[in-house]
């Protein structure tokens, strides 16, 4: 089936959750307020359709929720847990990093530990420093975790379905600004986007730009502007942060000789730092020219006006790319 439908990312996520809950009673959805809309509206209608057997409204008890999700997965279920804001994954870093990520390595490695952790993240106009962070830099350090950041409605559908069906624990980080984006989404009930597969959003020969989540869209605007200035940018959305599609990035940089990574994150410890380091380490001569467009080491202000000043945007990407070329 190659039918597509125009959907928002939010609608696409809800539809995939409904499909997967319908497909198996072993699939469960847990979280705070999920009997209503959930944190970002993604849970809408699921409790009414699937009831308390599969949609579990939990107390605001993240540590026990995430422990319970691990217990459910050990028992062979396929729990999907919503974190109210992905920033709160720091409250359950112990469960996520010390237990879920390590479980199959230190025990007898059951074939599946099918946990999907999903939630909203990212700056969206003055939510403040503990409801705006990008969480992939905090989490990508931990061996044993898979992390995806969909930037489009189609990728929301394809990556969430891949996450739910994966035998591994997968974290799906949904940028708040992506929820309202509209796009065509394949209606094939088995449509998945492969975990670890980057998308070449546009091809170009002068510079490789790597961007994901909301930054992918800022980078697309920038690529248009660069094209009008005679700079041909190749835009790669890795979509999966861990495991990163190193081949796609390596191949592109081999062609362009320049790498710009755009990330909505403070510079220190950014994923961009890891990407650039790997590419430079593994490159022959000449060493590619590299730069990153990220945030300074600041926290998000509650003022939306001030927040806009600290976030990377298309103009910053254009300026950085122009300097590299």
């Amino acid at each position: 089936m190659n039918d597509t439908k125009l959907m928002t990312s939010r609608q696409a996520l809800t539809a995939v959750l409904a499909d997967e809950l319908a497909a198996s009673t072993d699939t469960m959805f847990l979280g705070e307020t999920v009997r209503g809309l959930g944190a970002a509206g993604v849970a809408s209608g699921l409790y009414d359709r699937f009831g308390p057997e599969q949609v579990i409204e939990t107390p605001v008890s993240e540590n026990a929720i995430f422990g319970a999700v691990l217990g459910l997965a050990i028992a062979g279920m396929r729990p999907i847990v919503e974190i109210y804001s992905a920033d709160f994954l720091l409250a359950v870093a112990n469960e996520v990093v010390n237990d879920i990520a390590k479980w199959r390595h230190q025990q007898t490695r059951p074939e599946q530990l099918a946990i999907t952790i999903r939630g909203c993240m990212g700056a969206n106009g003055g939510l403040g420093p503990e409801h705006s962070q990008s969480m992939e830099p905090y989490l990508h350090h931990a061996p044993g975790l898979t992390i995806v950041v969909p930037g489009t409605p189609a990728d929301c559908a394809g990556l969430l379905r891949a996450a739910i069906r994966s035998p591994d624990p997968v974290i799906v980080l949904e940028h708040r600004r992506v929820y309202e984006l509209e796009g065509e989404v394949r209606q094939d009930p088995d449509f998945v986007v492969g975990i670890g597969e980057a998308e070449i959003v546009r091809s170009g020969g002068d510079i490789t730009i790597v961007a994901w989540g909301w930054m992918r869209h800022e980078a697309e605007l920038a690529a248009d502007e660069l094209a009008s200035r005679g700079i041909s940018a190749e835009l790669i959305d890795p979509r999966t942060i861990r495991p990163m599609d190193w081949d796609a990035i390596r191949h592109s940089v081999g062609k362009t000789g320049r790498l710009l990574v755009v990330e909505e994150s403070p510079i220190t410890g950014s994923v961009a730092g890891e990407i650039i380091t790997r590419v430079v380490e593994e490159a022959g001569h000449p060493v590619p020219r590299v730069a990153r467009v990220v945030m300074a080491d600041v926290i998000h202000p509650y003022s939306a006006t001030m927040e806009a000043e600290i976030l990377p945007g298309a103009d910053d990407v254009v300026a950085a790319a122009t300097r590299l070329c």
Partner: protein
Amino acid sequence: MQIPLETAISLYRTMLVSRGFDERCAELLARGEPVPHFHSGVGQEALMVGAVAPLRPDDQILYTHRGYGHLLAKGVPLHEIALDTFMKSGGTNEGFGGVMHVNRLDLGVPGREGVFGTRFGIAAGLALACQRRALDQVVVCFYGEAAGARGALYEAMNMAVLWRLPLVFVAENNGWSFSSRTEWLFPEGRMSRVWRGFEIPVEVIDGNDLEAVYGEISTAVERARSGQGPSVVEGLTYRVDPHIWWDDAAYQPTPEIEQWRASDPVARTRERLLATGASVERVAATERDAEEVVADAFARVAAAVDADWPTASLHR
């Protein structure tokens, strides 16, 4: 609750195996040989073994780091525990988790968390899975003073009561949390006091009395199995040995230790067996049998090869 004689002899044997392993490990340590992550359970055998004994093979346990009686009583062979302890091949986790992560999912031992406290949520999740699948299985979650002070227990207890989960929480009050007295950590020195507010059964028992433990846990397990929800049993016992091998336990008063040695659960169980009809010969044969199990486990360790660590990245 009087335990049927054959069952009681079997439990006595398991307690002896647990004691024998601890004593043998202590001997190795005294000779300066390493016993990685060893935490002696000497003095706590009745609580560990007696609380697992009423369970069915398909029931599940979350165990503590102290003592190996829970695992033995659930059917994990001692030699697998020993092989894991000494990072040898042939145990349950091939050196990846050592004795801290012994697991046999097929025996109802799914494994253990890395930082004490996650187990309460895990137990709730396992129990929720049983409930969702309409299985009449029960999950028993053991914990000591350290894990029992962590917030996840309060969260999981609330969920267990809210959802009437088939869960039994067993608090092992052994007097000490490393060098901190239980009295310094919990009101009235009782780990279960706070749970009275949930209006669920909360019982405090003599944890060195095998029959008391067996009886109280049997009641709690049957309650959980019949859909009536969780209970808490706090067993009062005592950590006779130091916390861990490098601990000199100078903070633990000798008279206190001696006082508890006088109510040693192994000796008490032996006396009770003889008083309830077991012959001296039968008891002696059980003791020889347990010694052989311990000797066999160490012989297997001596003959085993080291677990083989992969050098490749754990993750793509």
